[in-house]
């Protein structure tokens, strides 16, 4: 197998890889700015310089020339090479800053250049704390600066588009953003304008940077030049915890981190999963978090003559059970939800079965033309495929209306959806029938017709499984705490903070931001128990274990197997 020697250590390698990527893959850090694994290699930042040598071959014989001790003679390139652009070759010898003073000096020199016209406004920069320039300048850069002149001034606070702001002075011209729009999103909405030290990225005249993936440039910007209009100046990186999860604005299930401070989601960033979203996240997924913070319900409610009134969870369960007990199970319409987890839908289906009712149906939310064949889909729900795999099929609107007209629907049990807003019923149609509703937020239109309203935990507050449009089962994890004690949730809670110094719970001191809601896998058994059907599950993990065992379409989808990147399920043919 071909070998490469880096800092005296010999590594085997296979296939064609670039030196920098190889080093990063093997835990050898090399400072760099412009290189990104998903983009072309311009080698323009000149930060990843290393010494590269190759064994010398005898011109006549083609044999390797050898030193007296038998080791091959190595000839080093006269110039330092950018490791990002160097292809590995058998016998190559590399010296990084760890073993070469020349390389260490060159990297220091380069950082000195990068910083002379950089505003060094880290104290007010959103990137501070997770800024590659800041981190690498401290690690590899010079002490102080020899630059004694006025810095170059460039435009600040430029609104490139509705979602991205530019501070051109912070820009180090790595061209990651323009390469992203040219090579990945292919919108070609950004280009470098001007020349030399006055360079900065800009949109063509009279155009906006408004493509649906625009905010990705904020993540890949190695400095604070590009910031999100939505997130800038809101929270420092070290004040937030990040939780690995997935987004739910569409059926793709892109992997993400939810960043939370004081129990509020502050931003959403992509999490690399080469099988799903690679490094990217559409803007709609990133801006989909406000519903987790705002307009949230405050505890369970039941309808009395005075309208919906707050009650305890036990009272709400009692009332829901009483309502269901009073009607013929065959006349209860159970509505599953493509917004809810597999676990919750499974429990709802179990409940329907235990009562002898028809299997639940779900309301599809498909918006033709919204998808782009990449990370946005026509389907605006995250779990339609999960429902289908559980045998929960799309609801037949005509049939429901016919049954309603014939008086065959005596109760409706809704899991995390809004049938009124979806047009399945009018609020007036539901006025006379008992409705039990698990709901997300208080703008839910069905709420006006609900007899029992059980606030449901959102995707950032629960544990569960979603199946994306490609049949990949992926887990979500709680990123923010809900009111009330739930040991299962607490154990799974994201505890990483960028500074790693905080105690796990100190950021949730603000009770005002804790919502009184419960995940479906806690509230559904509460109702079921009162109907005489006790579900004996210790938690969502056990529910999923049973799903994976009993439902063939979920074979292998256990929590252990899903881990952080999910499990590809067997194809089940035509679905939504």
């Amino acid at each position, binding site marked *: 197998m071909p070998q490469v020697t880096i800092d005296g250590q010999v590594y085997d390698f296979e296939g064609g890889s670039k030196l920098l990527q190889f080093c990063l893959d093997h835990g050898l850090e090399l400072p760099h700015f412009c290189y990104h694994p998903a983009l072309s290699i*311009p080698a*323009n930042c000149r930060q990843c310089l290393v010494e590269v040598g190759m064994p010398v071959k005898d011109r006549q014989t083609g044999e390797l020339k050898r030193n007296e001790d038998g080791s091959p003679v190595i000839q080093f390139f006269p110039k330092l090479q950018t490791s990002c652009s160097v292809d590995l070759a058998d016998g190559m010898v590399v010296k990084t800053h760890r073993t070469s003073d020349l390389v260490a000096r060159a990297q220091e020199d380069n950082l000195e250049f990068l910083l002379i016209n950089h505003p060094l406004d880290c104290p007010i920069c959103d990137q501070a704390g997770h800024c590659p320039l800041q981190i690498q300048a401290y690690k590899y850069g010079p002490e102080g600066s020899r630059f004694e002149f006025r810095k170059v001034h460039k435009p600040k606070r430029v609104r490139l588009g509705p979602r991205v702001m530019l501070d051109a002075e912070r820009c180090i011209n790595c061209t990651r953003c323009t390469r992203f729009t040219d090579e990945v999103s292919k919108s070609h909405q950004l280009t470098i304008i001007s020349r030399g030290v006055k360079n900065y990225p800009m949109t063509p005249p009279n155009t906006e940077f408004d493509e649906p993936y625009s905010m990705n440039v904020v993540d890949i910007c190695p400095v604070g030049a590009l910031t999100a209009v939505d997130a800038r100046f809101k929270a420092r990186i070290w004040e937030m915890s990040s939780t690995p999860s997935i987004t739910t604005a569409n059926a793709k299930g892109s992997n993400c981190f939810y960043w939370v401070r004081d129990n509020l989601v502050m931003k959403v960033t992509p999490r690399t999963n080469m099988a799903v979203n690679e490094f990217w996240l559409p803007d709609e997924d990133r801006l989909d978090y406000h519903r987790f913070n705002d307009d949230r319900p405050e505890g369970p409610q039941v309808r009395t003559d005075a309208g919906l009134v707050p009650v305890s969870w036990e009272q709400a369960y009692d009332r829901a059970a009483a309502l269901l007990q009073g009607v013929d199970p065959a006349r209860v319409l159970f509505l599953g939800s493509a917004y809810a987890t597999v676990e919750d839908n499974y429990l709802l289906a179990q409940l329907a079965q235990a009562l002898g009712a028809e299997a639940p149906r779900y309301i599809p939310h498909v918006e033709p033309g919204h998808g782009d064949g990449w990370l946005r889909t026509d389907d605006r729900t995250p779990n339609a495929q999960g429902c289908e795999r559980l045998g929960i099929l799309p609801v037949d609107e005509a049939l429901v209306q016919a049954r309603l007209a014939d008086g065959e629907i005596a109760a409706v049990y809704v899991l995390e959806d809004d049938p009124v807003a979806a047009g399945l019923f009018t609020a007036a149609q539901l006025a006379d029938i008992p409705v039990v509703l698990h709901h997300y937020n208080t703008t839910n239109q069905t709420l006006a017709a609900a007899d029992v309203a059980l606030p449901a935990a959102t995707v950032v507050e629960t544990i569960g499984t979603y199946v994306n449009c490609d049949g990949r089962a992926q887990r979500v994890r709680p990123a923010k705490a809900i009111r009330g004690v739930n040991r299962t949730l607490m154990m799974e809670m994201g505890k990483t903070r960028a500074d790693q110094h905080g105690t796990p719970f100190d950021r949730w001191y603000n009770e005002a931001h804790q919502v009184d809601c419960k995940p479906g896998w806690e509230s559904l058994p509460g109702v079921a128990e009162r109907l005489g059907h006790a579900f004996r599950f210790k938690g969502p993990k056990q529910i999923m274990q049973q799903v994976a065992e009993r439902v063939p379409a979920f074979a292998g989808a256990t929590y252990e197997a899903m881990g952080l990147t999910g499990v590809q399920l067997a194809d089940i043919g035509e679905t939504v």
Partner: protein
Amino acid sequence: MEANNGQTKAGDWRTYQRVLLPPVKDLHRLDVYEQHGGYTALRTVLTDARWEPKAVTEEVKASGLRGRGGAGFSTGLKWSFMPPVDDRPRYLCCNGDESEPGTFKDRQLMEYNPHLVFEGILIACYAMSINTCYLYVRGEYADWISHMERELEKLYAKGYVGENIMGTGFSTDIVIHKGAGAYICGEESSLMESLEGKRAYPRIKPPFPAQKGLWGYPTTINNVETLACVPLIINNGAAWYAGIGAERHPGPVLYGISGHVNKPGVYEYPTGMLITDLIYEVCGGIRGGKKLKAVVPGGSSTPVLRADQIEGVTMDAESLREAGSMMGTAGMLVMDEDTDMVSFLRRVTHFYHHESCGQCTPCREGTGWLENLVTRIDEGEGHLRDLDLLLDLCTQMEGRTVCALADAAAWPVRHTIQRFREEFEARCKPSVFPTGDGAPAEAVPAS
């Protein structure tokens, strides 16, 4: 010493007959050019069975022709890097971007002998089996572009360019492209980017243009003057060409001489001319009978030579390398004893600061810093330590960028300071640690 070979052979420059720019009236006209043997070289290679494409390349290689664009690479060798013909397109780019300060020789060729350039292009295309050539001309040369376009139209009309040239079945198109107004567009890989309609950022090499050039296809880039030599080589033979001027760097060359000489201009002479001959004989000596102070031999990026360094130095790559400079484009800047070298360097650093494309960090940031420092010294506000910082910055820039612009910016700084250090030191503020009796009165002793 090879340099001496050149010197002796170029010694008879007084009897030299001009071939690139022969003294023929209205030579730019197609009929006049043809009356004087124009396009016979093209006709020969296209019709004579002896001239297989490979044979043309071999002939050019044997002639010892070296690129006239600045780097001085063997033209025949460059042509032989083109991969074997396959079904992919192949391109020739003729580089007429000519933007190195002090260089203005391609313009003369395009004005007075455009058909020699076209003929050279066509022969080169034949040698490398190329059927599209882009002639990239500096955008500021608007008049010369329209002049060339006019002549090119006549060639198309006559069937010398386009489909089925001279009825031989060989086809080549020539497209004249107006440059995008930046120095960097003359760098061969950014020239291709510019042709592709992109921002002229130089590409990283490898891959080299012959492997992956214009639009990703095999491409050769040659200077205007280089290609103009090709018909001469075909007509007169490689041996004739190799016999002109310096042995290792032969041929006629257009010396563009500017500065403090009595008769500045473009002069065609063999390579290997003594610099002193060029200044004192060809150009009639220094203006006003002054003394020579410095010479920049080949465009502003080549290292400056002091008057005492040019004794016996000839204009060819080997002799100039020995003297500590380079041939470059043979655009010579001559400076007399009154020249302020600090001010000269200030102007040069300003140029490279203005023209750095901004792709690579060391060049983008370094060129500006160099100008800042030199300007400060020129204005009398500099410190002695600034000189060391300048040299340090040169080290930080040289060889650490994608293209050679950083080197081109750093070399003049390094060599002008090294070769005229006293002048720079005298301009700096006095040290706070004066030594000797000659310490300036305003100097503050360290206490």
